């Protein structure tokens, strides 16, 4: 029979050293008695006689498991860990077998230690010992952990409270941090720590952050078990808070006035419905568009995106609707489709800055899919509701030519967006005689999966853009002829 005494301070390293010694001497678990003690024994310094079995590698997950389980309060923890280690020599995949009952037991122990560590981080309550004005302030706490978690948790407090001295005292092990150095000492009986005025403020906070109408004692206790209460100053007021909660909630309800019907809101919501054509000044138009609630799209979009450009531009470019980026930034054609358009326009010598750029529909329409927004084509009603704004923009700018990008723009400007691939590259006229050049929408091109189709579509759009300059030049010369 072998005996191994694992010290309470430094247990993780001591157990690993002992286990490595036993294992390399091929000593089976049933021949070892594991004990807890204050002395660090030199286990195999001289005694080891059996020839070592050589290097034995364990998965990293076992090391992580053992590093937690050694802090458990169960005296059988060292033996259980060693027994698993012993089995691992033959059973290769043991660590990833979530159905193995012995491993599951150790996992539960690990979980208990992790929970205990977490609760220690949460429930330690410091009191100030010295002068609050001192360069390095000094604090102490008395704590009663369930497992031996002071040592593995102390580094957390080092990371957090490095600019002050502190000590966490327990009957098991004490962690002491002074002038930047951490050390451990044996446990001691509970000391009398001085009163701390901030504790009263904390209890006041605890009393008042509680909502008596939502009393749920079970949820509180499952996360903050009673065993911790006696060292937490705020826990002293819990019985009173629980007892008075129903009466407080009732008092709130009884003090309440009666209710008006909720339907008034629905009536109010219908107010901005009518108002067919907008009449206002040039400067008011963006604000008016922004305040638009004519269709439900405004509820989901971030903001309306009015057109922009010189108010007397010869060319007006009409797209479909804002996309994800336009919706966030509040300006038209700044997303990927806008960038493609800019690039092609630049290639044919057309500058977007001289044109007035807008969309047929001013709010972004989309469906939310997980973390993304998928663009959706506006329907006829939405296009119709938004006509007010497109028409107002057309009246203000009075362009010589309108470039309609894609189906939605064509539908908004000419009444129908059907058969767009055949109509593109041609000019049609609105009821009031304004010419509209129909072409493809750059975002349609971006969505084409087939590279050859996409290349052809790009060439088509480029060709259509080339027509713009020619038409504008022609219409200027026509006008000059007319005036002559």
């Amino acid at each position: 029979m072998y005996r191994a005494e694992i010290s309470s301070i430094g247990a993780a390293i001591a157990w690993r050293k002992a286990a490595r010694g036993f294992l390399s001497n091929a000593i089976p678990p049933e021949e070892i008695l594991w004990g807890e003690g204050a002395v660090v024994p030199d286990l195999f310094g001289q005694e080891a006689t059996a020839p070592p079995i050589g290097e034995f590698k364990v998965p990293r997950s076992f090391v992580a498991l053992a590093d937690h389980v050694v802090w458990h309060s169960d005296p059988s923890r060292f033996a259980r860990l060693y027994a698993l280690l012993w089995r691992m020599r033959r059973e290769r995949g043991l660590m990833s077998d979530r159905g193995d009952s012995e491993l599951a037991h150790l996992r539960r122990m690990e979980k208990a230690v992790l929970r205990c560590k977490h609760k220690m981080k949460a429930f330690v309550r410091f009191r100030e010992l010295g002068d609050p004005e001192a360069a390095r302030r000094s604090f102490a706490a008395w704590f009663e952990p369930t497992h031996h978690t002071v040592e593995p948790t102390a580094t957390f407090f080092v990371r957090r409270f490095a600019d002050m001295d502190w000590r966490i005292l327990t009957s098991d092990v004490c962690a002491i941090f002074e002038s930047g150095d951490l050390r451990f000492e044996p446990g001691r009986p509970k000391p009398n720590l001085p009163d701390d005025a901030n504790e009263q403020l904390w209890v006041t906070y605890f009393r008042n952050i509680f909502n008596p109408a939502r009393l749920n004692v079970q949820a509180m206790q499952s996360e903050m078990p009673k065993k911790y209460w006696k060292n937490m100053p705020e826990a002293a007021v819990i019985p009173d808070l629980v007892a008075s909660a129903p009466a407080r909630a009732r008092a709130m309800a009884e003090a309440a006035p009666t209710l008006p019907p909720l339907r008034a809101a629905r009536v109010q919501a219908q107010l901005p419905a009518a108002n067919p054509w907008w009449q206002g000044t040039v400067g008011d138009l963006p604000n008016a568009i922004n305040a638009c609630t004519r269709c439900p799209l405004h509820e989901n979009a971030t903001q309306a995106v009015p057109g922009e450009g010189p108010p007397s531009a010869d060319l007006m470019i009409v797209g479909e609707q804002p996309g994800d980026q336009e919706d966030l930034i509040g300006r038209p054609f700044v997303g990927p489709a806008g960038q493609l358009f800019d690039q092609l326009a630049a290639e044919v010598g057309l500058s977007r800055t001289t044109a007035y750029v807008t969309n047929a529909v001013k709010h972004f329409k989309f469906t939310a899919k997980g973390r993304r927004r998928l663009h959706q084509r506006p329907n006829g009603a939405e296009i119709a509701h938004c006509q007010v704004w497109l028409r107002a923009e057309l009246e203000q700018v009075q362009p010589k030519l309108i470039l309609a990008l894609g189906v939605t723009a064509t539908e908004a400007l000419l009444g129908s967006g059907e058969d767009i691939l055949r109509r593109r590259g041609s000019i049609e006229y609105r009821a009031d005689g304004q010419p509209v050049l129909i072409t493809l929408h750059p975002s349609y091109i971006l969505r084409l999966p087939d590279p050859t189709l996409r290349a052809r579509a790009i060439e088509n759009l480029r060709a259509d853009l080339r027509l713009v300059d020619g038409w504008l030049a022609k219409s200027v010369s026509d006008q000059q002829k007319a005036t002559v």
Partner: protein
Amino acid sequence: MTKQTLDQKLAILSDAAKYDASCASSGSIKRDSRDGKGLGSNEGTGICHAYAPDGRCISLLKILMTNFCIYDCTYCVNRVSSNVPRARFSVDEVVKLTIEFYRRNYIEGLFLSSGIIRSPDATMSDMVLIARKLRQEENFRGYIHLKTIPDATPELIAEAGLLADRLSINVEMPSDAAVREHAPEKDPSQIRKAMGDVRLRKEAANDKSHTGKRPPRFAPAGQSTQMIVGADGSNDAQVLGQSTRLYSSYKLKRVYYSAFSPIPDSSAKLPLISPPLQREHRLYQADWLLRFYDFQLDEITSVTPDGNLDLDIDPKLAWALAHREMFPFDVNRASREMLLRVPGFGVKTVTRILTTRRHRMLRYEDLIQMGASMKKARAFVVAGGWTPGTLTDSANLRARFAPPPEQLALF
């Protein structure tokens, strides 16, 4: 009027903040003060330092800077027409409380909200001042969550994002109409613009410059929002639809659902019922399915009779009961996506099933060992030594999960 003590102010201004559902302190960048020059750390995961008897976690010092407010939102205890006692912290008082509480290990940091006094900009600049003092004068490295005022100028929100870990802007209600009715001074589109602005600034802060230098982090723990549930007539489908759009539009970290709770001195416009806590719980469950289980919104809402989630059973079970023709799944063969749809299986359980079945065949007992809730799952899975037989299609399957009908009081 006698001057209020700090204790009295704290009582009033924490009472006023208790209707805020958010208290998370997780998801930010890791920081610590090992260099000895500052105070505090951030470990990535939040720590709940205490639990109130309402079962809610206390992680941050959650207070209002002031509960004076010029707005008149009916659901809010601090609205201008309410008769609650009023108080106001000075900037230094908030800083001192945060630091002293933090040093005693009571909190993870500060959650600061405020009633709106004088103007949105004046209020917001005081909040920014508090955050700046904490970060720059006290070298505070703990968590700061600022509830921003949507009407404040973008420059103030920009500075807030550089100081705080998380920003939040409340959408308040599930629909624009409800906001207009209950919070007449708040503008839903202004709220959305402010959220969009935060998303853009956060994305801009992720782009490295041409020299490879990263701009300062902007709200590293992201942004969140809160929606009050049960104060207006919206159903759960509308609530979840709104939150799905918010997640996708502004990349929110969390949408908090706050069951409307009776408040002292309530307005005549709102129902004073006990808060719909179970509904709040079901909404969080559904929200979870949308974010982590790859459920689509219409899958969850299509199995609800009136657009409201079933209060008796959780949304995943409700979906499974309505789609029994797809079950049972074989735990030894089914894909990850399918296993995630089994009621009683969580993400962890599914991962454990997948790693273990690479080595061997799974039996019913193994699933219990892996933490699956077999009481729920047994009707929907096949495993070694187990087949549900006719259980999957049995007529009384729902009754096995729903609580038994309650005898109503006669009088």
